[in-house]
């Protein structure tokens, strides 16, 4: 066994046993109508983070259930100390419904304000700030304690990919996923549309035939949903831009994406936003729009995500830090204010994938212990929500 002390982090132990790497108060608007007021409450309150919610009303039941699952999952994430729900009053997704869904997962503090009941913007903002302020004061009483790396659930993602993603950054992520599995932690492979063409390879990596079949099933279902809409996600893939960049076949493109999964057996296939309770490498059925899939994994309990980008994207998440990697040396320097980790030394044949992977593993532990990633410094954290008519 490796010496475990080298693989601990300082986290917040929550009452449900999970470990947080941040100690946020999360302000959640239950619908688009209360999103601006929720943002006014969050503004100038260090310790509070917020999301925007374009949904919560005017939705069919299946779509509404997806929104509820995402909101409740984000609230339940161990990086969140407590939650303030900001409702309008007449929306479909009443704050009581959201609170009940959170309660199914955790007993953390949940407060609420409602615009129609409080009486307008000013009074709701004042009451919301008072409640959020109390939660922040309570959160400040929490201390970081040593936690084993096996408490970590690490999401993986790619966005704004270029040829260096599949040749460098995704290989480093795959290496780290193997290490996390060996150390008893969890990593999540996501973005089902990007499995298309390589699903049989991923299925072969499954721990059992049943799990392998589940991987094939989620890919088939994803494709069928688009076919039902008269769309084909295989057509135009790889794109002309991909081909100009050296990608010849869809299989080649998808193999570059799924290399993030490393080589260890896949232990489970989860639905979007399912709470992750399995150790080792797991698959979550998410869309491939990165701001959405990161949110889905975070709702499943990922405390942080490692994210490869080639062309460069500043995206993050308000609840869980997103550690941005690139294998493109130009992107690493030109957009250094949102790149956290440069894997391009592997392409210059200066460092091996394993050397970079070990360095990334140590950075993950530092970030889990409180070191800020770049998007947190700039306050970048827009999310998107999975939908019945989903992103691809």
């Amino acid at each position: 066994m490796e010496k475990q002390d080298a693989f601990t982090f300082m986290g917040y132990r929550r009452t449900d046993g999970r470990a947080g790497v941040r100690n946020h108060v999360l302000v959640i608007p239950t619908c688009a109508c209360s999103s601006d007021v929720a943002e006014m409450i969050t503004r100038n309150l260090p310790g509070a983070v917020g999301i925007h919610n374009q949904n919560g009303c005017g939705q069919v039941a299946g779509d509404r259930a997806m929104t509820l699952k995402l909101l409740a999952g984000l609230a339940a994430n161990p990086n969140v100390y407590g939650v303030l729900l900001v409702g309008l009053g007449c929306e479909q997704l009443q704050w009581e419904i959201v609170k009940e869904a959170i309660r199914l997962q955790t007993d953390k503090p949940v407060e609420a304000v409602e615009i129609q009941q409080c009486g307008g913007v000013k009074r709701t903002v004042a009451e919301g700030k008072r409640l959020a302020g109390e939660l922040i004061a309570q959160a400040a009483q929490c201390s970081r304690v040593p936690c084993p790396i096996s408490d970590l659930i690490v999401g993986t993602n790619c966005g704004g990919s270029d040829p260096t993603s599949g040749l460098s950054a995704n290989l480093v992520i795959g290496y780290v996923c193997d290490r996390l599995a060996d150390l008893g932690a969890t990593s999540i492979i996501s973005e089902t549309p990007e499995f298309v063409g390589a699903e049989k390879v991923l299925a072969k990596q499954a721990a059992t035939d049943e799990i392998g079949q589940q991987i094939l099933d989620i890919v088939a279902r994803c494709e069928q949903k688009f076919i039902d809409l008269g769309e084909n996600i295989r057509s135009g893939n790889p794109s002309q831009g991909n081909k100009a960049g050296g990608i010849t076949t869809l299989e080649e493109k998808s193999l570059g994406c799924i290399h993030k999964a490393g080589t260890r057996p896949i232990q489970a296939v989860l639905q979007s936003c399912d709470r992750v309770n399995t150790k080792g490498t797991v698959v979550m059925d998410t869309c491939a729009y990165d701001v959405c899939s990161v949110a889905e994994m975070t709702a499943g309990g990922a405390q942080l995500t490692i994210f490869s980008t080639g062309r460069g994207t500043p995206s993050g998440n308000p609840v869980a830090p997103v550690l941005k990697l690139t294998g493109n040396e130009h992107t690493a320097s030109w957009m250094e204010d949102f790149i956290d980790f440069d894997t391009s030394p592997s392409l210059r044949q200066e460092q091996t994938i394993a050397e970079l992977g070990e360095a990334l593993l140590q950075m993950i532990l530092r970030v889990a212990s409180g070191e800020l990633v770049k998007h947190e410094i700039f306050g970048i954290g827009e999310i998107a929500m999975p939908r019945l008519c989903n992103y691809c």
Partner: protein
Amino acid sequence: MTAKKKAVRIEDNDTVLTVLEAVQAGETASTGTEDITALEDIPQYHKIARRAMKRGEIIYKYGQPMGYAAADIAAGQWVHTHNADSEPPEGGEA
């Protein structure tokens, strides 16, 4: 003598390398441990054959099948949409 151009092999059983910089015919693409002489110009991030492949043979990258040779390919040739495809060519696998 021109400098060797950098290339990467992802898994040992791959039948192609990816060149990290544009390579001209006659130049050498090198992983540091393996050298292949290019028979034709190869754009940056495109693939060069590590060894000869028969028409219909599976092409490996990432240690996995990424498609089929649509024509006979010599070591050092550019491998792309003109001589590789997702589907096996007429006549089936080699």
